[in-house]
């Protein structure tokens, strides 16, 4: 067991290093002088040379990469080219906003999606099932930013129920904070609620057809017990896995939602950094996002390893 864990941890580190390498490559290996990209389309040759020198871009690539890795491991993620502020500190300041957005959205999509999926699975083919499937189909097919704009127009602009995109710190009042986030929460949650409803439904239907469930029914067990104890419990694991992955991705910043609603979170940070060719900030945000995803993957793998004896046997 411990050897498996140790190996998985080692692979995590490898994957993270590869993530950094890929980002580096994108910025440097693509034809075009990176200093040119950073200095801008309209920069003069002198400016470009200055930029190269100032940012240490005249060093050979492996050295730059190595230097970045060593510093990053010690918590020094460099300074933004644009704001000259420390990258990690800036990211950590933006993170609570992304966290606020994610947290509320997660609560809503779980409360909406999973019960809807359960109900659909319990009554397949009913009016409820059909309408849920239509609704979720729309939810997963609509562009999130467009839904956000429509909501803003209807509920914020026309009806005046919500502010027109903004962000209020939690410290300035819980109600104000939530009030500003309701529309972004719902926009984000709509997409995921759709997936989760469908997943829940599919999983429960699959399990319901399995032999041991049929046996339980045949034995005359109360339907509620069967559904609750057997079907739903087992459908839970893949859902939890999905939840972990989705949350990890969202921690990397929901660029579109944050952009439409003006939320100063990681998504906006990453987006601006990429447009401004702010390499340290790009590396920082990508690494930050990747960290969550890799850790989430790790936890999921360990969970499955611990729970499913078949995997244990296979890997030993």
């Amino acid at each position, binding site marked *: 067991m411990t050897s498996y864990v140790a190996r998985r941890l080692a692979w995590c580190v490898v994957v993270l290093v590869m993530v950094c390498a890929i980002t580096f490559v994108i910025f440097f290996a693509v034809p075009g002088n990176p200093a040119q990209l950073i200095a801008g389309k309209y920069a003069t040759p002198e400016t470009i040379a200055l930029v190269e020198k100032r940012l240490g871009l005249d060093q050979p690539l492996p050295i730059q990469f190595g230097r970045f890795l060593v510093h990053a491991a010690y918590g020094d993620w460099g300074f933004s080219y644009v704001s000259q502020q420390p990258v990690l500190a800036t990211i950590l300041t933006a993170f609570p906003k992304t966290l606020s957005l994610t947290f509320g959205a997660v609560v809503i999509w779980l409360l909406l999606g999973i019960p809807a999926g359960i109900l659909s699975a319990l009554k397949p083919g009913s009016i409820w*099932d059909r309408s849920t499937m239509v609704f979720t189909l729309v939810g997963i097919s609509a*562009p999130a930013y467009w839904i956000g704009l429509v909501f803003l127009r209807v509920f914020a602009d026309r009806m005046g129920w919500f502010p027109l995109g903004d962000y209020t710190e939690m410290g300035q009042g819980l109600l104000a904070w939530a009030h500003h986030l309701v529309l972004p929460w719902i926009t984000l949650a709509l997409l995921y609620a759709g997936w989760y409803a469908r997943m829940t439904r599919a999983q429960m*239907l699959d399990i319901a057809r399995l032999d041991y469930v049929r046996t339980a029914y045949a034995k005359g067990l109360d339907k509620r017990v069967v559904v609750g104890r057997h079907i739903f419990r087992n459908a839970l694991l893949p859902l939890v896995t999905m939840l972990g992955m989705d949350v990890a991705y969202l921690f990397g910043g929901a660029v579109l939602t944050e952009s439409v609603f003006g939320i100063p979170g990681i998504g906006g940070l990453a*987006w601006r950094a990429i447009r401004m060719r702010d390499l340290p900030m790009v590396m920082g945000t990508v690494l930050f996002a990747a960290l969550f995803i890799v850790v989430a*993957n790790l936890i999921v793998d360990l969970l499955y390893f611990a729970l499913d004896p078949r995997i244990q046997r296979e890997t030993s």
Partner: protein
Amino acid sequence: MTAARRFARDRWALTGFVFLALLVVVAVAAPLVVGRVLHASPYRLGMMDKVKEGGRLVDVVSDGGIPIGPSASYPLGADLIGRDVLSRLIYGARVSLLVSTMGTLLAVLLGLLVGLLAGFYRGTVDTILSRFVDAMMAIPILLLAIALASVLPQGNVWTVVLILGLVNWTYLARIVRGEVLSLREKEFVEAARALGANDSVILARHLVPNLVGPLLVFGTLSMAGNILLESALSFLGVGIQAPTPSWGNMIQEGMAFYSVAWWVVLFPGIAILLTVVSLNLVGDGLRDALVPGSQERIGL
């Protein structure tokens, strides 16, 4: 019952398919439809034009900069600089469909290649490739796409195709690898080996044909995602650039005025919605037709 027959019996999948077929026809015939039938243009600005509405002459774009809404001469309204939204929607379909299809094809090719190699050869090759796939999947798709867009020549349709391909193949590679892993243990592969066939023959002749099913399903669903991704990139300004119309950049252009000109934002969004819904329906239908019993579906 053949897969095709099963597909045809699925009402919803069929509806989706019909919509897509119509869309493709209209998109391909765009110049004909827009030019001859509608007598309109996706590029012609009508800033100082006036049209007859309800007996009066009305500005296409008012003095306050507000364009005309859905009306007789502009069925879906005009955009902020007086261009016909319907024409741009149709031309936008061309761009979005072309880019998403090519992007999906590229992703399928890359995913197929990597998945085959990883699944068939296993061992070190598999480990390295799988870790690489893990690493690429650890970067949020949108960030990766934006990063690539900012370093590649902007505004080029082929740039967007390349980005869509590079960003999506990992998902397919994993699926292909999984399928290959299970397929390679099957008897027909062993039989082929026993007959002395070499690797590439086995790959090409025996494995790939069995992959067509899953590839078709996931390709379709992947295309749905690509339409959304392309529109997101164009919305952010790093995808298809103006004046080439794309459903995404139409929404972005109209965003500042959505409070007074809702049609510029609403209709492209509906177009995306309907197309992606159709693709999802077709994808689901394909999955049910090709792999019966994989998911019990009634109605949808």
